[in-house]
């Protein structure tokens, strides 16, 4: 399996903390070689699991009868849990309504609730936290700066589809100034 990315770009955030979206987590969960490629690229980064991402990842587990496996997977020594206490939740709630209003005002009122909470949490933190996702629809440059794109090949075992796919993961940084501009343009 092969990964394609610009070394110069990934070196710029070599030791940043990176939060993973559910789509990236599910790819890691499905392929050992993908896991190895990914962990080689991001070996120096703290890989963060947002509680909402954890919930999204686990809620379908009963259909595969794999709750135990998925729960244990999330306790990998490679992952780090993001703090989830009353203080953080209060701050997230301060941003949740703003993020929802911004997306509605900018023509994306159907953004999933989970994504709104993920964005609100990223708004709470400073710029040392990056975000990895394959979702280009709900996570774009309206509120984020796109720092890089990493492409990783993944072989598929499901005989019904193509034998392999290439997944393009974008590395995003929440931009508080863009957020403020969007807030200022909301109707009063």
């Amino acid at each position, binding site marked *: 399996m092969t990964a394609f990315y610009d070394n110069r770009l990934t070196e710029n955030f070599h030791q940043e903390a990176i939060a993973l979206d559910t789509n990236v987590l*599910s790819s890691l969960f499905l392929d050992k070689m993908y896991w190895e490629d990914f962990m080689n690229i991001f070996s120096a980064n703290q890989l963060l699991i947002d509680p909402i991402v954890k919930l999204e990842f686990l809620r379908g587990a009963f259909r595969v009868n794999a709750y135990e496996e998925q729960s*244990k997977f999330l306790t990998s*020594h490679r992952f*780090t*849990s993001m703090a989830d206490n009353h203080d953080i939740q209060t701050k997230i709630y301060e941003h949740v309504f703003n993020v929802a209003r911004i997306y509605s005002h900018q023509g994306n009122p159907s953004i999933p609730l989970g994504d709104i909470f993920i964005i609100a949490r990223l708004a*709470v*933190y400073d710029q040392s936290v990056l975000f990895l996702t394959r979702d280009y629809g709900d996570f774009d440059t309206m509120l984020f700066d796109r720092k890089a794109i990493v492409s990783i090949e993944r072989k598929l075992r499901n005989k019904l589809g193509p034998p392999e796919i290439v997944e393009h993961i974008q590395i995003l940084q929440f931009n508080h100034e863009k957020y403020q501009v969007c807030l200022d343009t909301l109707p009063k």
Partner: protein
Amino acid sequence: MKKDKKTIYKGIKPEFTPAGKTTDEEVFKIIESVQRKLSKMKPEDIPEMFKQF
């Protein structure tokens, strides 16, 4: 008149805790186990996020 400069919220320093101690070898066993389960399932029964396995 001098215009007031707006203060932009810059965010707080994040706090994190290690998720656990599961090793890569244990993760690989989990991946293999789940791949076996998914291979035996009907396509329509597989959750959307695992459709492309």
